[in-house]
């Protein structure tokens, strides 16, 4: 079953002089096992939107159903939060326990699981993120490198075995290899475990590469939700919103501006490279 947002609107401080409408009339279905990218300028409502996916925020109007469970129902909220794992920006800032093992166990413990089950899940989650339990379980989170801390924080969410994983800028601040490793990990959660992924990112190349569909938010509204190919064929509108384009799309635009006809709206560099090499070979 999917996550269904129906005519979702959210106003901060409603009824006060500071009332601020952050989201208006968003209808969107996030399918089982789908990789949905969310893009939008700062202030477009991305963070407000994702906090609705596990009931951290509740709709001012409209509703959010997670596998049919309404987030407005207080008694369902615990169940909803174990279905939808939320990884905020710089999640490693939230590590707080004395050992990695205890930090990762925090979520499953709160779910009220048995000790044995918790232990199984902790080592499973650590292995998933590439931190060998024998090496890392007893370490203090503060002894880890930046990339390892990020993984440990992610393991804490994965130990709850969420059906959906929501990530806000999961690669921010990591070095290029660290970025690739986290992205590969996220993609493997989807392909190996069938975890549905919702990823907010400013990196258009990363979103373009992995997302099945991309939701574009603009001033609290859903501008469009479609495949990367269709979304990035609206490059002029995206630029007007203050968004970036994938680098391949940037080059396609620069080539077209120079009178070279590129028929296809490429958003992946490897595909654009093949096209350019093909043209060169054909011309000769």
């Amino acid at each position: 079953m999917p996550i269904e947002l129906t005519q979702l609107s959210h106003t901060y401080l409603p009824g006060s002089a500071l009332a601020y409408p952050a989201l208006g009339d968003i209808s969107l279905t996030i399918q089982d096992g789908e990789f949905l990218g969310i893009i939008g300028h700062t202030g477009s409502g991305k963070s407000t939107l994702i906090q609705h996916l596990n009931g951290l925020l509740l709709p001012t109007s409209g509703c959010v159903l997670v596998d049919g469970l309404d987030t407005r129902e207080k008694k369902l909220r615990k169940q909803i939060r174990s279905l939808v794992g939320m990884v905020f920006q710089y999640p490693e800032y939230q590590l707080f326990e004395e050992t990695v093992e205890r930090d990762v166990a925090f979520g499953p413990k709160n779910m009220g699981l048995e000790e044995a089950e918790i232990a199984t899940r902790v080592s499973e989650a650590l292995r998933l993120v590439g931190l060998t339990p024998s090496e890392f379980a007893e370490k203090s989170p503060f002894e880890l490198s930046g990339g390892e801390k990020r993984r440990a924080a992610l393991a804490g969410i994965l130990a709850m075995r969420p059906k959906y994983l929501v990530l806000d800028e999961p690669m921010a601040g990591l070095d290029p290899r660290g970025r690739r490793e986290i992205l590969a990990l996220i993609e493997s959660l989807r392909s190996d475990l069938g975890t549905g992924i919702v990823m907010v990112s400013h990196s258009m190349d990363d979103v373009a590469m992995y997302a099945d569909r991309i939701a574009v938010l603009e001033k609290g509204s859903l501008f469009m939700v479609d495949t990367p190919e269709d979304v990035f064929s609206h490059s002029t509108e995206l630029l007007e919103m203050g968004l970036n384009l994938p680098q391949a799309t940037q080059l396609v635009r620069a080539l077209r501006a120079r009178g070279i006809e590129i028929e296809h709206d490429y958003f992946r560099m490897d595909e654009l490279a093949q096209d350019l090499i093909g043209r060169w070979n054909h011309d000769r």
Partner: protein
Amino acid sequence: MTPNAQIEIVNVGFQYAGAEKIALKNISLSIHKGEVIAIVGHNGSGKSTLCKMLNALLIPAEGTVTVDGMDTRDEKNLLEIRRRVGMVFQNPDNQLVTTIVEEDVGFGPENLGVPPAEIRVRVDAALNEVEMSAYAEKASHALSGGQKQRVAIAGLLAMQPEVLVLDEATAMLDPRGREEVLSTVKKLNQERGMTVVMITQFMEEALGADRVFVLSEGRLVMEGTPKEVFNERALLEESRLDAPAFVKLRDELLAAGLPISHEAMSCEALADELSRVLKA
């Protein structure tokens, strides 16, 4: 000693108290007036540690750091070194200290004992320089990330520094905020000859530098122009880094036999080359 070096780092080594790993080992480099320097390296490579050596936030355990000939180990130089070398950090929310934008910009010169009339002049000029004059009397917490970083830069400008050090100052910003900060810094370099040291995880940002230093595991493993550094693909990979996407595309096209220039590293340069080759 390199002649005319503004910042001279000689055989610097450093280890944090209680840490197993050495943070910096035997680093020597010099930075000249008016240069734009990019420092890149993996998480934990020692970039930020090195950065903090530049204005005596950290003092080397081995070796020396001098700023315009002043040794950072000598306490009587500290105030002058910190005035000359201004630092912008990663998190926009951690570096504004007062509630109103112009008060924040005046905070530095006030602490330096600059007379109030002179502070006024400097604050206005600094805000103008970063294009934030319209926000002088606004609340600093309500600004966007890019605006906060520009106010932080204005706060440094009000102290009339010689060198700006940006420690991943764009990491937490959206593309528009990044662009705002980068163009502000570029302008300060080109129009005022400000020396700029940028630490970054974005290899594309390093393309705009005069020279790039690559750190790995606390060691300086490469230095050179962006072209020289980004041509060392294997060494970059070993250092957990990567060449910018357009450099990789250029190399792939060259390997396939397209007669494009090895100089092309940006989108625009590559488009120029491709249009020349494909139209011929």
